[in-house]
């Protein structure tokens, strides 16, 4: 029974969920906070404000009057009968994270290079799983960030909700 599970979920991938999108008080950026199931692993990814807002809208299931860019990608996929299967945070070089989006159509599988912000915004809209490779988690921009994020978390509750 373990082997079946491993086929669906390769062991080097860790499933993550988006916990929150924080405002970085010092710059006009957002921090997307991803955690694994038991919240023992945190992966913070810095993204631009527009990218962060796209993720927030999807997290809060806000339906905008007009389709946003990632709604449009979802709509293209729906029109073409393409399924968005999963997104993977694949690599980190310096402070730049890399991601891929896996699509499937009639048994054809394709993977496209993407920024994590696009991949995550899309995953939330397509209800598909988000993974990070174990390698990325091992090399993520240092564990001391956890403490830093926890500090921001309690300090900036109001700006977060604004």
């Amino acid at each position, binding site marked *: 029974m373990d082997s079946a599970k491993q086929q669906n979920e390769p062991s080097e991938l860790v499933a993550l969920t988006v916990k929150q999108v924080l405002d970085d008080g010092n710059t006009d950026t957002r921090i997307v906070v991803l955690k694994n199931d038991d919240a023992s692993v945190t992966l913070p990814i810095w993204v631009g*404000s527009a990218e962060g807002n796209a993720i927030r809208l999807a997290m809060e299931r806000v339906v905008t009057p007009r389709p946003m*860019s990632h709604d449009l990608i979802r709509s293209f996929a729906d029109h073409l009968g393409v399924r968005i299967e999963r997104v993977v945070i694949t690599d980190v070089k310096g402070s730049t994270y890399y991601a891929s989006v896996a699509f499937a159509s009639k048994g054809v599988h394709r993977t496209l290079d993407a920024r994590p912000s696009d991949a995550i915004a899309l995953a939330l809209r397509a209800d598909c799983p988000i993974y990070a490779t174990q390698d990325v988690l091992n090399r993520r921009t240092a564990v001391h960030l956890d403490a830093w994020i926890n500090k921001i978390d309690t300090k900036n509750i109001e700006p977060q909700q604004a």
Partner: protein
Amino acid sequence: MITQMRVKGLIFDPYNNAYIVVLRDEENSDMLPIWVGKSEASAIGLALENVTAPRPMTHDLMKSFLETFDAKIISVVITDLNENTYFATIHLMYEDSEYTVDSRPSDAIALALRTSAPIFASEKVIKKQSSEELEQWLENLKPEDFGKLDT
């Protein structure tokens, strides 16, 4: 009736802290200004300047998605304007069928510029837009605002 338009440029609108995408027809007789947000303007600006970002931007991902599945953008059409909400359609050809996808004009234009697809505007939207908003905007513009446009 639809008219083919070209993107003539992007202007900063200090009044609304937004950007205006200026579309003109071939004879330069009709002009269609479309107000867009900062990130939408930057998606259009990068394509106008032919800048390739180090990482794929959202519309680059859109383009590579369509290419990967052999879907081709035939055209985009700015179809309507209703109380500051703009409407556009993206016309796709996929497996010998045509699909019409609802979109914001900013996404449609950003994608059209990346795929060299023609941009059209409906007669209705050209009439509405050029008469209503632009005149109002120009009237409200103070001389000192022109300096800001250059920056």
